[in-house]
């Protein structure tokens, strides 16, 4: 398997997903849920079947504008609106009951705008701190160039996930943030295992083996492990996605995409980036030597 030699192809494959994702992020951004924007969400389970129009009617009469209505399984309806006062919300539920028949409130969420802003700020802060912590640890245990390559691979994973969520406008909630951070922690695992092998092989490097051959060999030696590990995580995530209920769908989907992207970047991006950094450093050194 030619990892280093064909690295341009592997980079290009990544860019094929990254660039549309980035464009989408710039143009339409993410479909932010009420966890970020603030607002109210009601999930109502009606006794009788209702249509979106029925629900829209009641909302209009109650003067609750700019809401989205979504039908869910089992006569359930999810309504999202701007933040409702408790009294407004009670009136609305009352109106639904009288006009559309008996119902139970399955979920009722109200998030103030302050909380949403904090969530975003904390998520970014967490990412930043995680990056600093990892760079420090990897630099200490390996070397700085490994750290840079690992972080680039991680940013790749996060951009792939957020990009795909943006392209398909899947609504993101606070569990998305948790998923991203977990992907961050999880995918570095894969990268480190490969780097660990490169580090080990460098120590007992044979004279006639080139760096690219050594990296190729290291990736190949750890390949089964990389694939098997990702497979077991994918088993769990697929089980959660199909049988785990609606509430964890966003989280699981983000994790699944992230883990797949992470496996790819660990194998096809992280080591090649490190190799390129190494080559670049050598070229610098040679240029310096020549100048001296």
């Amino acid at each position, binding site marked *: 398997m030619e990892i280093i030699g064909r690295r341009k192809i592997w980079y290009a494959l990544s860019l094929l997903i990254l660039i549309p994702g980035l464009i989408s992020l710039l143009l339409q951004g993410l479909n932010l849920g009420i966890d970020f924007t603030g607002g109210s969400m009601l999930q109502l*389970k009606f006794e009788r079947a209702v249509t979106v129009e029925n629900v829209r009617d009641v909302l209009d009469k109650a003067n609750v504008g700019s809401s989205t209505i979504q039908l869910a399984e089992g006569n359930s309806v999810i309504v999202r609106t701007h933040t409702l006062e*408790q009294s407004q919300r009670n009136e609305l539920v009352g109106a639904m009951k009288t006009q559309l028949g008996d119902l*139970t*409130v399955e*979920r*009722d*969420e*109200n*998030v*103030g705008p*302050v*909380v949403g802003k904090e969530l975003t700020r*904390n*998520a970014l*802060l*967490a990412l930043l*701190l*995680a990056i600093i*912590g*990892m760079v420090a*640890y*990897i630099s200490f*245990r390996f070397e700085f160039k490994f750290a840079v390559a690992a972080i680039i691979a991680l940013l790749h994973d996060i951009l792939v996930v957020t990009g795909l969520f943006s392209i398909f406008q899947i609504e993101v909630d*606070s*569990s998305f*943030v*948790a998923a991203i*951070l*977990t992907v961050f*922690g*999880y995918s*570095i*695992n*894969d990268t*480190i*295992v490969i780097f*660990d*092998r490169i580090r080990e092989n460098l120590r007992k490097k044979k004279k006639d083996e080139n760096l690219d051959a050594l990296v190729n060999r290291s990736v190949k*030696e750890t390949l*089964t*492990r990389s694939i*098997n*590990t990702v*497979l*077991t*995580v994918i*088993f*769990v*995530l697929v*089980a*959660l996605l*199909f*049988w*785990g*209920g609606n*509430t*964890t769908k966003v*989280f*699981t989907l983000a*994790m699944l995409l992230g883990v797949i992207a992470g496996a790819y970047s660990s194998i096809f991006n992280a080591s090649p980036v490190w190799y390129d950094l190494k080559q670049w450093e050598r070229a610098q050194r040679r240029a310096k030597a020549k100048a001296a």
Partner: protein
Amino acid sequence: MNARKLLQLVALISVVAIAAALSYNPIVQNTKLGLDLQGGLHVVLQAVETPDRKVTQEEMQQVHAIMEQRINGLGVAEPLIQLEGTNRLIIELAGIQDPDKAVDLIGKTALLTFRTADGQTVIEGKDLKEAKEALEPGSNMAIVHLTLNSEGAKKFADVTRANVGKQIGIYLDEDLLQNPTVSEAITGGQARITGYGSLEDARRIAMLLNSGALPVKMEMVEKRTVGPTLGAESLEKSKAAAMIGVGLIFAFMFLYYRVPGFVAIVSLILYSVIVVGILTLLKATWTLPGIAGFLLSLGVAVDANVIIYERLKEELRAGKTLRTAIEDGFQRAFTTILDSNVTTLISIVILYYLGTGPIRGFAVTLGIGILTSMFTALSFTRMMLRSAGGSGLFNNKKLYGA
């Protein structure tokens, strides 16, 4: 064949089986479910602050105590009421049947003021210590008995002295609750308000006064409720998903790695017993993210085994004997597992410190899982493999996938 090693292997498996069987009941009985799994209410209250009116730690403690008192009346089994940061209070009532009633009660966070006829605020909620309804012994008349704190008593004495014969309005925000007339100067910090139709009326006002006796206005910045049916459904579904996920992992490990795969399964069962046991001892609450965290940590635990077995295969292919291959495999796998898990732990720790509520639960579960997996993979799996390898029953290298 080595009988001693074989016996050791059987003993190890039995220990795990017994541990799993014995811990099952205590764990199931002591498991606490989060509100997303049994339904319930989650509320975040935030003090309303202005640049010249910052809330103090003491005031927040007061708010905490008042909310505790109010919620105790609801009869929720284990309410969670805790301060967060400098100006927030989190209330979680799992398993509550009527969340609306609780929201109304918690939401009564209006600011209590006593105002003179010309609209001047003379007494605030923070001056009031307690309001309690009572029947006056002699006349059997319903009254509300007010107790003011020392500062409030002083203010109240001044105000009543200056307003004898006039009315003092009691307001919750802008709502006039009552407009009693001052009959005499009240100096002792104890006052009574009369003129209620029934004890029930007096009780209602007393409760409102107590509710209004918050030292600072609180705003509900976040509210989430989950109905009991949805919670039960989520629990059932995540149980099913967990079974399927774990089943797939076990099947894969056994089919791909054979003998070590079986060792891994035993080791993963031990791992699960330890992690769930620790979480139960820590009185952790199981939430949906928590379950996801546990399942993912299972993935990490599998990974530790996979790293070891891949090493083992490599050593076997390099022509080493089974025994040295097992020892060298573990030796070499150790740094790999250490470095890869420490980097993951870094992000978990950060997730814990910056996250709230369910995200914290997720981080705790995953973190405990990673630490435990390092322990079980490097000690228990090793013991098992040594016994299995030494027993002489499984000498064929094919049984190790090599």
